[in-house]
């Protein structure tokens, strides 16, 4: 029912009510008053009903499409946003650990290559300075031969570790999808809450309810200093530092 139609209705009821009272028909007048109440409740129920339905739809539509059946199964098991976000944490943690595993496996390999090459270089320099005996040269040739074989093997290991690191980044696609969905849900919930506020104000208009607005509580200092996590937009804020240099400058201004 539109607001105008609703008002027309109210005027209609009011007129009827006055007529009935003037005619001394108290019983009918009471009935009219009860219809007035009913109409108010009806509008309220309708609006709340609309809101419930749209919230329900938003939550129902909150499902992920993936082409991969294994993923679909995994996704279908996740029924709410917090589970989805936990999934993001898990995926990113696994990727970080996999990447660090590979880096830890690779570092000794490249360190070994570097150390062996350094050793050979110093011996090679001796050869160049003609400080090496024929026998030592034969030894060196063997070492160089061994090193070349090792270098081939070890650089292939480095290659394969690097490509594992690359593949470990595949979480970005999946977590990106999940996070986008969560953002969408949050937005829908927000829109619906705005609707709720609008509906509530309509209901207030209909029922003539006036609320005493409480002055907004100002946050206590304690709360303001509480942890906030990573700052998304340090350049637009005055109260945060944007890099380590700012931290150092601030600390040194405090006598650090």
């Amino acid at each position: 029912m539109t607001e105008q139609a609703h008002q027309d209705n109210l005027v209609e009821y009011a007129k009827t009510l006055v007529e009935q009272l003037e005619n001394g028909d108290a019983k009918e007048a009471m009935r009219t008053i009860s219809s007035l109440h009913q109409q108010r409740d009806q509008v309220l129920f309708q609006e709340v009903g609309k809101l419930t339905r749209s919230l329900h739809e938003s939550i129902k539509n909150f499902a992920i499409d993936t082409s991969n059946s294994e993923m679909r199964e995994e996704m279908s098991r996740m029924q709410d946003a917090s589970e989805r976000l936990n999934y993001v944490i898990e995926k990113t943690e696994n990727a970080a650990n996999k990447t660090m595993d590979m880096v830890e496996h690779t570092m000794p390999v490249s360190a070994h290559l570097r150390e062996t090459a350094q050793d050979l270089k110093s011996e090679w320099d001796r050869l160049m300075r003609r400080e090496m005996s024929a026998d030592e040269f034969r030894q060196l040739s063997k070492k160089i031969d061994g090193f070349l074989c090792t270098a081939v093997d070890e650089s292939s290991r480095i290659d394969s570790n690097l490509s594992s690191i690359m593949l470990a980044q595949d979480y970005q696609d999946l977590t990106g999808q999940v996070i986008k969905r969560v953002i969408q849900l949050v937005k829908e919930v927000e829109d619906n809450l705005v609707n709720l506020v609008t509906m509530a104000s309509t209901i207030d208009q209909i029922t003539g309810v006036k609320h005493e607005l409480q002055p907004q509580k100002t946050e206590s200092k304690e709360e303001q200093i509480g942890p906030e996590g990573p700052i998304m937009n340090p350049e637009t804020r005055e109260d945060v530092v944007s890099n380590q240099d700012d931290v150092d400058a601030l600390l040194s201004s405090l006598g650090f």
Partner: protein
Amino acid sequence: MKILIVDDFSTMRRIIKNLLRDLGFTNTQEADDGSSALPLLKSSDFDFLITDWNMPGMTGIDLLKAVRADEKLQSLPVLMVTAEAKREQIIEAAQAGVNGYVVKPFTAQALKEKIEKIFERVDA
């Protein structure tokens, strides 16, 4: 040199542990928040504490305050490595007696510099 690393994310603990190893510090232990770190600190002989700020349970700033209030631990060098970047927070940490403050994301170089600076001061 025995170092305790406190962070609720195991990956961050691992990164810091690796960077410390590259700097030659191999004797490290880990805790996932202040309330599990404090008994470790009290019962063992750590030389250095690296802590995050925002952790469930006991936060890093509360851990720092608890360390400074403890007779045995009060002079333990503490480095804060955190994403918390509000000026007020840095000031609060400084007033609570932090020895260094590194904001995440950080570089290996920044961590190294701060650690070295802290030890220079402690030794001086």
